[in-house]
Each structure stands twice: as structure tokens, then as C-alpha cells.
């Protein structure tokens, strides 16, 4: 319902803009027909009209853009609310259970494990949001050091395996030649983690993810994360890196997320002089994410 309302207001503004432009053109054509003898005024009028038309067009584009952004921002607030409240609700439920009921030892240990998992999830969301804030503040300088990329990937793979309880054969790391890059260790770690975490998260029950590294023309290293998940529409390949953006549809409700992960990856890649992009043959064919970073020679 809310979405339909927004679509309507977008349509209204586009119609308004188009209507105004038509009125101006009609007025101008009329004016030219009436005053075709006044050459200089004609030129002046043409310039003025061009200015007005482009002003209205720009205004319309801006409005539509803002409405879209607003919608995405709302969706983000909803997603974050859910991602923050759900683990807290769960932790609280288990704490109250332990407080009020006689629970046998096996159950108690299970409850502790669940609470630890939930606090991990909560921490993950909070870190994601804080990191987006830090990246947004472009004045913050990178804390540069030499990083062994293989080590970073190794760590991320282990962490994601533990978090999603994936067996080693479900998430494989095929290390290439050792590579050293210069960058902010914390940010590179976050970017690599996000890519691997996404691949596993969106795979559903059939997790077959491979992580590989390879040198590209001597100056770059490419980290490829390939999954056999739901795949990505061609039209969405670029958009998914936008801040707050989540592909609309059932998948976004099945897989919970804030719409920040890939935005962080893209920002980190840019800040390190690299690039990230997605490749997919379309829905049902899985996807590959490539992160390319410059290496130290």
C-alpha cells in the first residue's frame, strides 16, 4: 500500500513536470508565431526557454530521486529495527526463561549457545551500521598497513563457517599465490567478510561457495566469491551496491539484511583504489562477486 502510494506520487510529479514543459513550449511557439519579426528578442526568448525547460526537468528528476531515496530509507529503518529487535527479543526471552523456570543442564547450555549466537548477530548489525557512518564521513583517514590478503580471507572464511554452521566443503577457499596489499586492515576485513557472508546467506540450504584469488595484469589481485544461490537479474547487478538498496521481492524477506553490506564493500574498494562488481547469468544461475584491489610490488 505504501509502495503504491509512492508510485502514485512519483507519477504525479513526472506528470506535473511534463505538463509544465508542454505549457512552456506551447506558450513559446505561440509567442514566436506572433513576434517572428523581432530577431534579437527571438534569440533571447529561445535561451530563456531552454533555461526554464531544463530547470523544470532537473527539478522533476531531483524530486523523483528524493522520493526513491526516502522510500529506501524507510525500508532501511524497518530492516534495522527488525535486525536489532529480533535478537534482543530472543536473548531476553531466554534470560527470562532461565530466570523463571527450572531448566535442565542440557537445555541450559543450549540456551546459552543461542544467546551467544543472537548477541553475535546483534553485534554484526551494529558494526555494519557504525561502519557505514564512518565510511560516509570521508574525512576519516585510512589506517594504512601492509596486509596479507590470504590471511584476511582465511579468517573471514572461518568466521562465516562458524556463524552459519557451514561444513568446510560447503565454503571452500582456493588460495592463489600469496599477495600483499596496502590498506586499512579493518575495512578490508569487513569487505571480504561481507562478500563471503552474503554468498552463504543468500544460498539458502544449498551452500556451495568458493573463494579464490588471482593476480590480474601484475598490478591487481582479484578476489572471486562464487555461489550457486538464487542469482541476480541483469538490471539489478549495479543497483545492489547502492546504499540501503535491497532487491525487491520474496528473497529480501526470506534473507534478512540491512542493505548496507555491499555498499560497504563498494566504498572500501573505492577508498583502496580498487573496484567491485557482480556477475550473474540471471535468476537461478548463482552469482560471482569480484573484488579487485591494487597490490604492492
Amino acid at each position, binding site marked *: 500500500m505504501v509502495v503504491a502510494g509512492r508510485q502514485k506520487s512519483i507519477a504525479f510529479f513526472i506528470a506535473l513536470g511534463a505538463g509544465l514543459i508542454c505549457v512552456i513550449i506551447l506558450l513559446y511557439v505561440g509567442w514566436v508565431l506572433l513576434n517572428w519579426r523581432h530577431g534579437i528578442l527571438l534569440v533571447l526568448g529561445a535561451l530563456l526557454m531552454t533555461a526554464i525547460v531544463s530547470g523544470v526537468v532537473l527539478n522533476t528528476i531531483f524530486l523523483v530521486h528524493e522520493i526513491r531515496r526516502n522510500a529506501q530509507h524507510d525500508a532501511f529503518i524497518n530492516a534495522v529495527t*527488525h535486525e536489532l529487535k*529480533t535478537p*534482543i527479543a*530472543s536473548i*531476553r*526471552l*531466554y534470560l*527470562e526463561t532461565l530466570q523463571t523456570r527450572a531448566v535442565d543442564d542440557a537445555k541450559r547450555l543450549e540456551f546459552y549457545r*543461542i544467546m551467544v549466537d543472537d548477541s553475535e548477530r546483534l553485534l554484526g548489525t551494529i558494526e555494519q551500521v557504525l561502519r557505514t557512518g564512518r565510511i560516509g564521513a570521508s574525512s576519516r583517514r585510512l589506517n594504512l598497513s601492509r596486509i596479507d590478503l590470504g590471511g584476511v580471507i582465511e579468517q573471514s572464511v572461518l568466521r562465516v563457517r562458524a556463524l552459519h554452521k557451514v561444513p568446510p566443503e560447503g565454503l571452500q577457499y582456493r588460495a592463489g599465490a600469496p599477495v600483499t596489499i596496502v590498506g586499512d586492515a579493518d575495512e578490508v576485513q569487513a569487505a571480504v567478510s561481507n562478500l563471503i557472508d552474503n554468498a552463504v546467506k543468500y544460498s539458502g540450504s544449498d551452500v556451495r561457495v568458493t573463494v579464490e584469488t588471482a593476480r590480474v595484469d601484475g598490478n591487481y589481485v582479484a578476489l572471486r566469491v562464487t555461489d550457486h544461490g538464487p542469482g541476480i537479474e541483469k538490471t539489478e547487478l549495479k543497483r545492489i551496491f547502492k546504499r540501503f538498496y535491497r532487491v525487491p521481492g520474496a528473497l529480501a*524477506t526470506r534473507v534478512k539484511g540491512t542493505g548496507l553490506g555491499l555498499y560497504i564493500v563498494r566504498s572500501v574498494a573505492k577508498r583502496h583504489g580498487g573496484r567491485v562488481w557482480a556477475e550473474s547469468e540471471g535468476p537461478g544461475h548463482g552469482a560471482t562477486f569480484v573484488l579487485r584491489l591494487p597490490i604492492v610490488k
Partner: protein
Amino acid sequence: MSRILVVEDEQHLAEGLRFNLEAEGYQVHVVDTGEAALEALGPESPPFDVVILDVMLPGIDGFAVMSEMRHGGQFVPTLMLTARGHPDDVLRGFAAGADDYLTKPFELAILIARISGLLRRREWLRASMNHVTEPLAGPPPGPDETFTFGDKSMFFDRLELHVRDQVFPLTLMEANVLRYLIRHEGKPVSRKMMLEEVWGLHEDTDTRAIDNFIVRLRRYIEDDPTHPRHLLTVRGVGYRFVATSQP
């Protein structure tokens, strides 16, 4: 033992709820999608006494599940449990037909108190129904809760429709719809009127849910359901019941 259906896709929460509700002595069934919930609440499945319904579900969401339940004549007391605590969301939940609404994170004791409140209300309603004979859809058409038309007799007290020597057991909602139509015999009744009077729902949405009931009723009372003679369609309005068979 009261049976509770928990519709929750967050596994941790679902299991925590199951543990606590079972400790309270309830029988708990957990499903993780709206589609599975509607199936579990269908007429073929054993009935539940209370439903706990999450909003953010994969596939169809909790609000849609809620209104689909109510339109389908499923009136089990339902508590919506969700992270969305904005007044608009709460109102939307109640408009869809929720009996209670609780936002996450919640206090366990409060949740349990609300569930037992819903169950208690259900028991009281049952107790009072035994005293008051007047059903939801107004006074009965006949003195002894029976209505005969042609070679068919409807026994509202037993929810049975006798057609010649055949006996069809009707659900309470089917009987209520039929009762409402019989009360307005000969006059056209709109779908909206039926929704309001029989279901007690005041919604502007144009619903086709009633049509399913009509299709089922026709199967019972019409000799040829494709050419109805008692339960006639009034185009653009709704339906009309006539006792004397129309040619």
C-alpha cells in the same frame, strides 16, 4: 489441553516460545511461513485455540495471513507478535482482524498472561453461548431452528442439511451464511452486508471470500449447482435466496 499455533520464522524465538508454552502446559505447533500457517488453520487440520502470528514472514506477511484467515471464516483468537511497534502497524494489525498485538522485545510473563486471557475469553464465550440461543446472525428463521424448502431441510441446531435422504454436515460459518440468506428470503443481499452481518468485518475491500461459501452451499442445496434455483446470483449486487424453486 489448549493447542497453540506459533507462526514465526526466527528459529530462536520460535523455539524459545515453544519451550515456554509447553512448560505452561500448552500443546505447541510451530510453522515458519504464512502459507504453512494458513494450511495448518485450514478446515481439514485439527483446530487451534490460539495463534501467535509474526508479521515479517518470508512470502506472504502476517497482515495478509491475518485478513485471509478472517475472510475464510477462521476466527481463532490471534495475537500478533512483531518488531513493528509503530501505531500505524498496530492499527493495521487490528484492522486485519487481530485480537491482540504485542511488540518485540516482549516480557515473557506478559505474553503468557495475554495468551491465557485470550483462552479465558474463548471459554467465557463458550459458556455464555450455552445460555443464549440467539446466534451471531440474528434470530433463527423457525421456532425450532429448522427451515424447510422444497425437499430440503436445514437443522441449524445440529448444523445439518437434509436433502431427501442425504445428510450434509455444515460448518458453523456455512450455516450462518445460509441463515442470513434465509432471513432475507427473496431480497438481494450484497457481499458487503454479509461480511458485516455474518463475519462482523467492516472493510472496504471487495472480497471474493463469500463467493467460496456460496459455491459450497450451492453444492449442498442445488440439484444442479451450475444452474442454481434457490441461491441466485444478483449481478452487480450479491446473492438472493428463494425458497420456492425458480424455473
